[in-house]
């Protein structure tokens, strides 16, 4: 009996084709379906920093040396985010840090905002607030 499909050449060809198909499918599946997620996250971070600045949350937290108000404000953010907020002075010295215990599963994005705080002596001091975020 003469067989076409069962020759060793044909079997080898089928094997190679199958391997190539599986490899391609796996490579395609590992690609992110959207690159817009980090951009959306960064916008949310920028919104949160703007809101905290305009409502005086950052200045109050800095004056009290307590991040509780920042944490409370960030309650509005989606639960699947891990957000770390830090405040540095003009010299770059870390003045405040709010670091929750959470694990990132994706890439981190950072948003920054400069804000002014009036000291008790009436002097305006510039600060930089940074928010690093990622999906958990």
């Amino acid at each position: 009996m003469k067989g076409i499909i069962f020759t060793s050449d044909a079997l080898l060809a089928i094997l190679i084709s199958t391997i190539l198909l599986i490899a391609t499918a796996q490579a395609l599946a590992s690609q992110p379906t959207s690159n817009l997620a980090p951009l959306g996250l960064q916008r949310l971070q920028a919104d949160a920093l703007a809101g905290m600045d305009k409502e005086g949350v950052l200045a109050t937290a800095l004056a009290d040396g307590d991040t509780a108000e920042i944490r409370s404000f960030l309650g509005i953010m989606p639960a699947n985010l891990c957000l770390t907020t830090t405040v540095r002075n003009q010299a770059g010295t870390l003045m405040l840090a709010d670091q929750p215990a959470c694990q990132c599963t994706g890439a981190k994005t950072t948003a920054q905002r400069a804000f002014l705080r009036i000291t008790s002596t009436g002097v305006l001091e510039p600060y930089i607030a940074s928010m690093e975020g990622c999906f958990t």
Partner: protein
Amino acid sequence: MFQPRKRGQFFGADAILAFLLVLFALVAAGVATESLDSQISTTEITHRLTERATDSLNQLIRTPGKPADWNLLTTVDNTTIDSLGLSHEANLLDPQKVARFFNLTNSTDGFEQACVLLAIREPGYNFTLTLTYANNTVAYTTLYPAPVQSHIAASIERVAMLNHESVRARLTLWIEPIQ
């Protein structure tokens, strides 16, 4: 003397098998192309919706609108105002503008006007805007509920302040399926 062969080669088992294999490959390629076309088309539409939703939400939560006191006008449509905006300062929502906007969008005509003013003009396009407090209480929502999964949709979420409270503003833009 020359004897012509009676058996036709085209109908041999090898040829039929080869023909079937080629046919199978062609059909498979056709199905794959169709599926890929559909996926590309959906991705393109979703991308366009995302872009539109991003711009519209940005306009709403970061601009006061034009004129800035549009909420005081008796008639709100594209002849009386140039653009809709809900904030008096970026990310700080004006409670009066927010109330007027949701009052406007709770009627079919007002909703149509809001679509025009937010440049959501393509036929079949709809939007849902929802403002939610941190405790998940819905402060405001527009006339039409958020779409079911079968629709092509894009959602954008931002954070803003309303009456000194932080709110999540979620804009979902979707296309009604063709009947």
